């Protein structure tokens, strides 16, 4: 019986972590779909978003949830600036050069965070959280808010991708680049919007992760591997698959703590990813290989 309760409790944590991973993985998947490279600076975009959000509520004294839009705006602009200043100039060469560049950019962003905000651990002023008890299962109010915020963000993204012209253009470019370009889709504009949205989603993940735990300059880098695992599991290049991938990886990571040291959580994500790469490299939802 205790085991069952533990399992349900860990599943709640898993869904929370999965929401964070999903937001990150959607961005990774979208960037991969349009630009064909794995963006290694994505974790550090999350970190930037979390810290910008923190600064905003500290300076304006706004309620904590204002960190979400502020951080999203900050990271979206950061992503756009990085693209225009660096990635844009190497986009025409092989995508793998972009990969190297983004790996370096991850360290650049992280050192900027360390210089601006310092290396110490910081946290959002969430106050004391009194959990609700539902049949021996503790549910922390922030967890509910984190899941709700994720649902709102994902729904907004869904409406954008399906209802707007530019959203449809993005899906078209992701499906078949050549065909999309022939039909006269403004490629440069689509790329810029992809960065804005990818950055905003990353910041969403970063702020929610920061609210759930604490902020450190390496928070985003530490979660990058599970985010990639989620994107690959969902079929890289498939934003909707990334949501499912995020939830599966999040649940697996939390439930693994029943029988593994919690510090091995990222390794659990990695093992699942390797298994997917061996058995079904296109992911559950058949992404672009």
């Amino acid at each position, binding site marked *: 019986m205790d085991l069952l309760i533990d399992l349900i409790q860990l599943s709640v944590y898993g869904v929370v972590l999965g929401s964070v991973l999903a937001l990150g993985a959607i961005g990774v998947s979208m960037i991969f779909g349009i630009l064909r490279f794995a963006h290694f600076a994505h974790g550090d975009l999350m970190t930037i978003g979390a810290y910008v959000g923190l600064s905003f509520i500290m300076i304006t004294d706004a309620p904590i949830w204002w960190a979400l839009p502020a951080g999203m705006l900050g990271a979206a602009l950061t992503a756009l600036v990085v693209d225009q200043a*660096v990635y844009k100039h190497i986009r025409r060469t092989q995508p793998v050069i972009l990969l190297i560049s983004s790996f370096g950019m991850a360290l650049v962003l*992280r050192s900027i965070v360390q210089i601006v905000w310092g*290396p110490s651990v910081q946290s959002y002023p969430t106050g004391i959280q009194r959990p609700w008890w539902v049949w021996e299962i503790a549910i922390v109010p922030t967890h509910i808010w984190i899941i709700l915020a994720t649902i709102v963000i994902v729904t907004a993204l869904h409406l954008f991708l399906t209802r707007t012209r530019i959203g449809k253009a993005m899906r078209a470019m992701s499906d078949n680049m050549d065909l999309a370009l022939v039909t006269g889709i403004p490629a440069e504009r689509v790329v810029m919007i992809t960065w804005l949205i990818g950055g905003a989603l990353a910041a969403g993940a970063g702020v929610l992760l920061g609210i759930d735990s604490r902020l450190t300059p390496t928070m985003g880098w530490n979660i990058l591997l599970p985010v990639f695992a989620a994107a690959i599991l969902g079929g890289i290049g498939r934003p909707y698959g990334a949501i499912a991938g995020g939830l599966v990886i999040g649940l697996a990571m939390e439930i693994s703590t029943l029988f593994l040291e919690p510090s091995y959580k990222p390794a659990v994500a990695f093992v699942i990813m390797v298994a997917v790469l061996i058995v079904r490299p296109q992911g559950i939802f058949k992404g672009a290989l």
Partner: protein
Amino acid sequence: MELAGIAAYLVSFFTFVGIYAILALGLNMQWGFSGQFNIGVAGFFAVGAYTSAILTTPESPWHLGGYGMPFLVGIVGAVVASALLGLVIGWITARLRTDYLAIATIGIAETLRLIVANERWLTNGVRGMSGIERPYADFFAALGLSSAMGSLIVVCAFLVLVYFLVERARQSPWGRVQRAIRENEPAAEASGKNIGRFRLEAFVVGSAIMGLGGALYAHYFGFLSPEAFLPLYGTFLVWVMLIAGGSGNNKGALLGAVIIWAIWSGSEFLMSTALPEALSGHAGPLRVLLIGVLLQVILIKRPEGLLPETTPKTVPFGKRD
């Protein structure tokens, strides 16, 4: 600074350059020759370092070991262990696209770092392993040389050996096939080359060279902890060295190791003296920022590096013996 201090600094400087040059040559085997993207250099580096340390250290209550094997056995063990790791990773990822290899290699590097940090019985965790002896210290002492100088000589000897081997490989038909696969995979396949096998060979050899670098590092530094295998030191600097020097060119890898290590260690010296008081706490991140920006500038302005790849001389058709 007195003369002895400068001499000691130079010995340490060139030992690190030598170790990083070996890592860069290993990476050049994987990326420069055959276009395989490994950003888990730190993982192979760590496996080599810890394998050699466990094999050669005397018995200690804090970690696995107590074999007290000679230095060369440690080196061979390090090379074999990292080659085996390369074999497993390469086998899994050989047929996948580059991005997956990149993600898989960084995954294995981070996982290994978690293992090293958490499995106290194996490596003494974050407290690290100490008491790893410098190679042939007695022999060099008999010659009147310090153990640091001896390490430098040993590292240089291995560097020359590795350089000779990879340069020979580059000029051989084997190296030609590697470049052919990198440039045009379908064409290489159409001429009957087993792509997966050639790729795997380059990946395993490159991994083994990185393991050698790790073992040499362990014996020079004498102390190992998970800190040394953060992606920054183990992987990023090696990549910047190879790209700055010129990937595909072994001389470029050597040149890159010298230049980037000079900038990296020089910036430490510069920032400790020239940085205003208020910023001195930021010296670490500022140095990383400098190297990161440098990489972006090289990628945009001179992606081929300082010494671009050259094709080795071929024997003209019809003149063979």
